[in-house]
């Protein structure tokens, strides 16, 4: 992980607004172009997995989903082009995915893309709230630890970080349920909304937030632990750089320097790691959703895995990768905004 950290060497310079916008657009364009081979790779891996499946993909799928109508099976054979040579199947598969045609889910009786998009918002909500929590808690804890090195607070942060870094998220989730739902009765055991409760207006939003607390903690604390450790060492590293001494020499107080000079530069490695880990966060939400019956893509994946509903499983893998790529581009733009020295890497 340490190899991927950028080490900032100078304070950010302020570039002119328009040139920065141009640079941002150029970065965006370049990232989008780079995303194409990446997506193609994901699709090919998917395709290889289908080919590796023991027995005919179609047999397994039809058997598990109780499709026995010969007309449907014939339709499926043509849809998946199972009589074509392998390379043609791959081309057709890519062509279908490009039109967002992920196949049909016989279990839900709707196209795969619809099944997934119904569940996507819940997962995105969980991801965003967990990342927000992780950043807020992690960065704050890292800053506190770095400003009070070798004190009680520093030790407290590193001990807590070590524990949350080692605790399996699903287990942490269950333990949170035991404490806050079963014993104390403060928070709901699972789900996204109270059954039979108000779903509209402010009451509905509050209800969802109420259900969001425990899953967010279970998923987010692991990342908070990582960010706290990275932030601490990054703050200490940046604080030794020349420009910080210059700022102190200018007569700024220690807190002023920390907040306006050190913090901004020290955030960069955290942002880098956030980008690298986007896929892990999405994957982690699969397990957490299963623990809390959160109605997101993870629950759908778990259902589909148990019922061997391959089109949905593969569709989730492709769309999940797409979400990760998009999130990575967003992280790159944030990175650029924080550090104007970087135009295009």
């Amino acid at each position, binding site marked *: 992980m340490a190899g991927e950290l950028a080490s900032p060497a100078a304070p950010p310079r302020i570039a002119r607004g328009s040139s920065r916008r141009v640079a941002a657009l150029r970065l965006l364009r370049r990232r989008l172009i780079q995303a194409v081979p990446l997506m193609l790779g994901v699709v090919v891996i998917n395709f290889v997995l289908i080919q590796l499946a023991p027995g005919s993909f179609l047999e397994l799928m039809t058997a598990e989903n109780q499709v026995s109508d010969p007309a449907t099976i014939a339709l499926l054979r043509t849809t998946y082009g199972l009589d074509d040579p392998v390379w043609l199947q791959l081309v057709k598969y890519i062509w279908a995915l490009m039109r967002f045609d992920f196949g049909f889910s016989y279990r839900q009786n709707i196209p795969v893309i619809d099944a997934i998009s119904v569940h996507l918002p819940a997962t995105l909500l969980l991801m965003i709230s967990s990342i927000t929590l992780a950043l807020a808690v992690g960065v704050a804890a890292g800053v506190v630890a770095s400003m009070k090195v070798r004190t009680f607070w520093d030790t407290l942060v590193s001990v807590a970080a070590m524990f949350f870094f080692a*605790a399996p998220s699903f287990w942490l989730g*269950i333990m949170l349920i*035991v404490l806050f739902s079963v014993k104390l009765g403060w928070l709901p055991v699972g789900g996204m909304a109270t059954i039979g409760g108000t779903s509209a207006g402010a009451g509905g939003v509050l209800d969802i937030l109420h259900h969001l607390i425990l899953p967010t903690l279970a998923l987010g604390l692991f990342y908070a632990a990582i960010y706290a450790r990275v932030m601490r060492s990054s703050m200490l590293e940046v604080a030794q750089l020349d420009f910080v001494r210059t700022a102190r020499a200018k007569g700024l107080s220690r807190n002023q320097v920390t907040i306006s000079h050190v913090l901004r530069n020290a955030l960069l490695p955290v942002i880098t790691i956030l980008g690298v880990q986007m896929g892990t966060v999405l994957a982690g939400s*699969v*397990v957490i959703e299963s623990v809390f019956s959160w109605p997101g893509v993870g629950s759908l994946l778990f259902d589909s*895995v148990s019922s061997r509903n391959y089109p949905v499983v593969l569709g989730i893998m492709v769309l999940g990768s797409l979400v990760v790529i998009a999130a990575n581009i967003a992280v790159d733009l944030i990175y650029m905004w924080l550090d104007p020295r970087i135009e295009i890497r």
Partner: protein
Amino acid sequence: MQRFEFIGRFARNRGALIGAVLILVVALMALLAPLVFPVDPLRIVGQPELWPGEDPDFPLGTDSLGRDMLSMIMHGARATLLIGLFASAVATLIGVSVGAIAGYFGGWIDEIAMRAAELFQTIPNLIFVLTIVVILGSTLTNIVIAIGVVSWTPIARMTRAEFLSLRDREFVQACRAMGMGDLKIIAAEILPNALPPVIVLSSLVVAGAILFESAVSFLGLGDPNVASWGRLVGDGRQLIRSSWYICAIPGVAIMITVLCLNLIGDGLNDALNPKLRDR
């Protein structure tokens, strides 16, 4: 002498020492499990849902079916540690091969290797593991390979970085001047020098692999013949209202093991880079 210093530095790190000792205890538990509990850990031996300490015969209590928790934890240690080690070995093998070739040859080979690493980092890792396992079947081998396949990228990047910094050193140039082949230079000359930081990373990959395996088993997709710790947590899930200890105990076992592996990794890292120690 140098090696001695290294061990000394490692031993002076209290956390790492505690980690190493506790891992030895866990490994001992795994080794002694068949001797202390020769019967199948999944056999019903007592009353169900006995809390830890309630019956001296079952120090960690029994689960919902009346199986001995201590026996299951000790046998589970075997499964969990072995899966972690093998998966990490797979990841290290892939990572070192890819990283070494990419770093040594550079150019388009490097470009392709790094794009591949990026690709494997893009696919959400656990979703990838679940997909592989569900398509190829929930066997121990498939799970180990699947975890290895999603965990190799950091090792590849680290190996590549080491190779990049070593490939133009004098001793390598000397080998080239002597007419030594590329593969021999990679394997016999550069690799031994590049390995120490990679080994440190591998110990962290073991920890990651254990967390992965526990998640897969927790979701009920583990090998049905293997009672790893993750599966024990999953089995106890239904009973959190009455007997939450069934979930808690194997989870603590996972946490302690992963924590110790991380501590050892940190300790090795510090011992290898003494300059970074005070960070």
